[in-house]
């Protein structure tokens, strides 16, 4: 198996002019105010001395542009429209030429290979209309097959400097790759870049696998597998694909695991005698603690970012609804009160919102609400949407959409928390149960 964590020596060498204080310039997108008109930008090919380098430079620019355009917040000015050509990274930028094509942001770069065969990329971001560089230029060093990560890191910088929000492009998604018809669907774990590139399979499809979940640092994945004939929880090491089963009681089922922010504790559902309750387990020792004792269904738990609270799904009121309780258990308070059934709540990495699945009047929705249940907003509607996962910056949600009928297939979609920019995430096969990693280092 290939190494996932390439050593990206983000030396971030600052060699350019002093930085503008971030966000002080006029080049600014206020995401929260609901952008209607995407910001036009130009991302010419990164320049290079060699033919191989020029192709790499073209590919890097193309991934940067796809990342930015894919947010719906930016719009690329195609290279055919450019008046000015970037032939040297160090030459002064002809602002007038970029203003003439209405490029508000300009990203330039150069790519070369160092003595050790690594890619060295430099980039600068310009605020065209104020005629200034936006922040400092940076240098990134990575392996040859890690060029897409370099591009994602540049795009994260552009996104971050212009929106003031964290980026999310240099991230991965673990999910369930699906094939075959509904009644004999084969499922296996897969991992890919957030944009669908570099897919690798982590398990075979001999057993049903469900709902993989990244650890807080992205180094491990929890998932549920039927390989013993019964659903049990496994933890998989992403780098070497080694895996082990978490301890379990005979005659029980365990599923719906999620890591606590400490990366050591797992909260999950355990079913015994037909009753499903929430438990935690210390991954190292295997010691478990029971959190709920109700005769109702308690499942789909998710921690808040500081690990002090858990949001989960329970049908103790008669229908599935969302509840919040202390991470140690105890009394829970209901937070969902709208019409319909609520499930799979996931606390946002920013801590401000809970994403959820809602079933109402025969339709499924992905929605968000504040953590006290107020300000519920539905972002999607379809025959079957479920299982939201947050982008590292808490601005975008990815989820499973399954189509109706005998030919129904599952695929991944993403949507902004504004409800805008709903789009399919490209995958090689059918796909479900995405879990978005944190930003990579």
């Amino acid at each position, binding site marked *: 198996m290939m190494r996932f964590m390439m050593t990206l020596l983000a030396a971030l060498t600052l060699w350019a002019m002093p930085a503008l204080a971030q966000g002080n310039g006029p080049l600014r997108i206020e995401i929260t105010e609901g952008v209607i008109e995407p910001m036009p930008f130009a991302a010419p090919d990164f320049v290079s001395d060699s033919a191989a380098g020029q192709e790499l430079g073209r590919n890097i620019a193309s991934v940067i542009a796809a990342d930015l355009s894919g947010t719906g917040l930016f719009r690329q000015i195609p290279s055919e429209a450019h008046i000015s050509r970037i032939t040297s990274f160090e030459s002064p930028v002809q602002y007038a030429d970029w203003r003439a094509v209405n490029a508000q942001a300009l990203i330039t770069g150069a790519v070369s290979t160092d003595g050790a065969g690594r890619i060295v990329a430099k980039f600068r971001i310009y605020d065209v209309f104020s005629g200034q560089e936006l922040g400092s230029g940076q240098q990134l060093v990575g392996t040859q097959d890690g060029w897409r990560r370099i591009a994602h890191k540049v795009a994260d910088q552009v996104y971050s400097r212009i929106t003031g929000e964290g980026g999310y492009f240099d991230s991965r998604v673990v999910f369930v790759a699906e094939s075959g018809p509904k*009644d004999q669907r084969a499922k296996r774990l897969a991992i890919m870049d957030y944009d669908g590139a570099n897919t690798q399979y982590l398990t075979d499809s*001999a057993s*049903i696998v469900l709902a993989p979940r990244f650890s807080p640092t992205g180094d491990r994945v929890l998932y549920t597998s039927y390989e013993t004939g*019964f659903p049990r929880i496994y933890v998989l090491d992403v780098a070497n694909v080694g895996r082990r089963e978490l301890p379990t009681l005979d005659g029980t089922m365990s599923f719906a695991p999620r890591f606590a922010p400490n990366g050591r504790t797992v909260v999950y*559902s355990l079913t015994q005698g*037909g009753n499903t309750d929430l438990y935690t387990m210390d991954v190292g020792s295997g010691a478990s603690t029971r959190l709920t004792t109700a005769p109702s269904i308690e499942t789909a738990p998710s921690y808040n970012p500081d690990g002090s609270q858990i949001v989960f799904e329970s049908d103790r009121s008669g229908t599935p609804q969302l509840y919040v309780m202390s991470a140690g258990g105890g009394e829970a308070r209901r937070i969902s009160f709208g019409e319909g059934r609520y499930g799979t709540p996931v606390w946002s990495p920013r801590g401000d919102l809970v994403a959820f699945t809602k079933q109402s009047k025969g339709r499924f929705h992905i929605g968000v609400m504040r953590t006290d249940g107020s300000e519920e907003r539905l972002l999607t509607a379809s*025959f079957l949407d479920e299982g939201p996962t947050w982008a590292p910056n808490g601005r975008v949600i990815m989820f499973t959409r*399954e189509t109706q009928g*005998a030919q129904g297939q599952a695929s991944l979609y993403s949507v902004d928390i504004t409800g805008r920019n709903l789009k399919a995430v490209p995958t090689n096969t059918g796909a479900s149960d995405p879990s978005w990693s944190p930003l990579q280092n």
Partner: protein
Amino acid sequence: MTYLSKTLILCAGLALAACTNPDRFDNGNSVDLNNGAGAGLAGSAQDPTSAAYFQQAVGDRVLFEVDQPTLNATAQSTLDGQANWLMTNRDFTAVIEGHADEQGTREYNLALGARRANAVQEYLITQGVAPNRLRVVSFGKERPIEICSNEACYTKNRRAVTVLAAGLGS
């Protein structure tokens, strides 16, 4: 077909009860798991001591209302037959598989299927089947037997199936 062959190998190796489940693959696929994996389990439907007879004549499954684990009169009658058969044919154990239709989230349906399987298990035990011969598992909405997206299919998918396995100690 690697999926099928791997499953067959796994089943043969573990002699796992769930592997005789006829729901797992549709019959049109011409993979006869009863001959392959469950050697000796299936037998002829004419033989009242065979797993095939249990499946077809006794009835290996009961159906449920939306979101419910309640056993109606039809289900109880089927389970009475299952209990009688199991008490007569003591060489068999069984795994009770609970299933849900596709309306609902993955996690909730797993828990709901477990409630259904458990309701069947408890009923069979009250009818006299030894608890150590019965295990339960839920597949949630992962293994529908009918694949359309309307009530005609959903009603058949909301089920608990009693899947026979080799006997105790085997």
